[in-house]
Each structure stands twice: as structure tokens, then as C-alpha cells.
């Protein structure tokens, strides 16, 4: 399976994402510039955390109009797996690939700590190796992770089982404790917690590993493996 890690000016979790895939998943992975216009060579696209373009306008807003985003939309339409973490999630929201928007954290502080995250739906491409209701220890590190959507959007998220992760102790004011959501089709996931920073015991948690392993297992299930 071949992963792309998209590198925007100001991304800073790209190397962690790359390392999680290559060292811990032992799958193919390449860094791809946000100037790229074709992502058809990849089976999964990862948008890492950071401060793309300085986040000067709104988090993820300037990155969401980068050339690569058109290619990401094309791949999303084909069903390619797309994962945005932290700033990557903010970019997916700004690009309209996921519903809702981010506001500054309720208490205005940048929060950087390990938090408890609940698997709210384990019947997806990204979560099916987890137990439903499992509690994960995952790092969070953001100033604008206060997820907002209106009530009708929230109803649609619930009706289509799009809420994959929720916070046990809501750290940032997100509506309904939402930490991660997918699109209706289930191939695009955005989440604020960092699974790529929780892939070995030395980092304090291995709870993020199964997310990537789920992606690989589901991809293998639908593709003949090259020998």
C-alpha cells in the first residue's frame, strides 16, 4: 500500500506521519508537495498537523486553496482513503471535504497534552480494528480545535454514523465532544488528536497504531497484493 504525506509550507508533523507509516506500519510512503496536481499514484493521502501558511487567515484556510487540494478532492471522489490530523483536519473542513468549522479553543489556550479519546464508531475503514467504545490515549496539540457545526449538520453526522471519535473530557469546547468525523461515504476522516504520535510504547502510547492498521487491512481487503 502506498501512502502520500502532503507537505504544506508550515506543516510540522509531516515527519512523524512519514515515520509512523514507514517504521511502524512498514508500508510505502512518500512526501508530496502541496504544489502537486496529481495524486492518482497513491492509495491513501495523509494531511499532517502544523501551521500551514502560518494559519494567518483561519486555520487551514490558505492551505485549502493550494493546488494539491483539487487533486485531493478528485481522489476523495474515487474513494481513496484520506486522513487529516489536526491542521490536516482543519484543511479538510476549510476545503469542504468535511462539514463544520473550527473555532478557537473555549479557554483560548493552546492545549498540548495526552487526552482520552473514545472510539464512537468502529464500523469504518479507519477504526474497525478497535473495540467499539474503546478509550484511547492520544496526544492533542492545538489552539483551534473547538469543532462547531449547526444542529442540522450534527443530526446528519449522527444519522450517517460519521462521528468516529469523541473526547472523554472535552478539552476545547467542541460541540457534542466531537474529536473526529468522516464524510458520508466513509473514506475521508478528520481528527484533532494525533494517532501518528502514539505508535510505540516509547512515545507513551501505541493506541494510534490500529487506526493506520485498519486502513491497511481494509485496503488489502479490496486490492490484490502485488508480489
Amino acid at each position: 500500500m502506498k501512502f502520500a504525506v502532503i507537505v504544506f509550507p508550515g506543516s510540522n508533523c509531516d515527519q512523524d506521519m512519514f515515520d509512523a507509516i514507514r517504521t511502524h506500519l512498514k508500508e510505502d510512503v512518500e512526501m508530496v508537495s502541496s504544489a502537486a496536481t496529481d495524486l492518482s499514484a497513491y492509495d491513501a493521502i495523509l494531511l499532517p498537523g502544523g501551521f500551514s501558511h502560518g494559519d494567518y487567515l483561519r486555520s487551514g484556510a490558505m492551505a485549502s486553496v493550494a493546488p494539491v487540494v483539487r487533486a485531493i478532492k478528485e481522489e476523495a471522489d474515487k474513494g481513496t482513503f484520506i486522513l487529516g490530523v489536526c491542521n490536516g483536519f482543519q484543511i479538510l473542513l476549510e476545503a469542504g471535504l468535511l462539514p463544520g468549522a473550527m473555532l478557537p479553543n473555549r479557554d483560548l489556550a493552546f492545549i498540548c497534552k495526552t487526552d482520552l479519546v473514545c472510539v464512537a464508531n468502529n464500523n469504518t475503514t479507519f477504526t474497525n480494528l478497535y473495540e467499539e467504545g474503546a478509550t484511547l490515549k492520544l496526544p492533542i496539540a492545538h489552539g483551534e480545535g473547538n469543532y462547531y457545526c449547526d444542529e442540522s449538520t450534527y443530526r446528519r453526522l449522527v444519522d450517517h454514523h460519521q462521528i468516529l471519535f469523541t473526547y472523554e473530557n472535552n478539552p476545547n469546547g467542541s460541540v457534542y465532544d466531537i474529536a473526529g468525523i468522516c464524510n458520508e461515504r466513509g473514506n475521508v476522516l478528520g481528527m484533532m488528536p494525533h494517532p501518528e504520535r502514539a505508535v510505540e510504547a516509547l512515545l507513551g502510547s501505541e493506541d494510534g497504531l490500529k487506526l493506520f492498521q485498519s486502513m491497511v487491512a481494509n485496503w488489502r481487503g479490496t486490492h490484490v497484493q502485488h508480489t
Partner: protein
Amino acid sequence: MYKVYVYVTLKEGVLDPQGKAIQESMHSLAYDEVESVRVGKYFELTVKDTGEIDKRVNELCDRLLANPVIEEYRYTLEEVVPN
């Protein structure tokens, strides 16, 4: 040539943690009459006249300067006559 003054504000009903913090500071200065503060953004653009300035500025606001999920915008135009 036009000067375009764009104001982006949070929609009614969307919480504004920054506005609330600023309001608390006002109260600590004894400006107790301030009942609410909403923080927004202000942009000044200088734009060539292409004959469809309203259409283009609205597009820019919708696509980049404001996020319609949480924000709304308004703008004013001022024609700039070159010296």
C-alpha cells in the same frame, strides 16, 4: 481602481471565546455597561476595475476571506481616481 473594505464577523449564535475574554477585561476596567463583544476581521483590498467587481469580491469572500459555516461578511467600495 477600487478600494474594497471587507468586514468579516462571526454569525449570530456562534460562540466567540475571544470576544468574551475582551469583554471581561472591559468589565475589570469598570466599563460594566458593555454587554457583549464580538471580534471580527477587517481587510483592505486595492482592486483593478474589471467591470464585475461585486461578483469578484463576493466570490473572494465566499471562497477565502470568510468561512460561511461560522462567519458572514459585508464590504464597501470606494472608487480611487489615479492622480
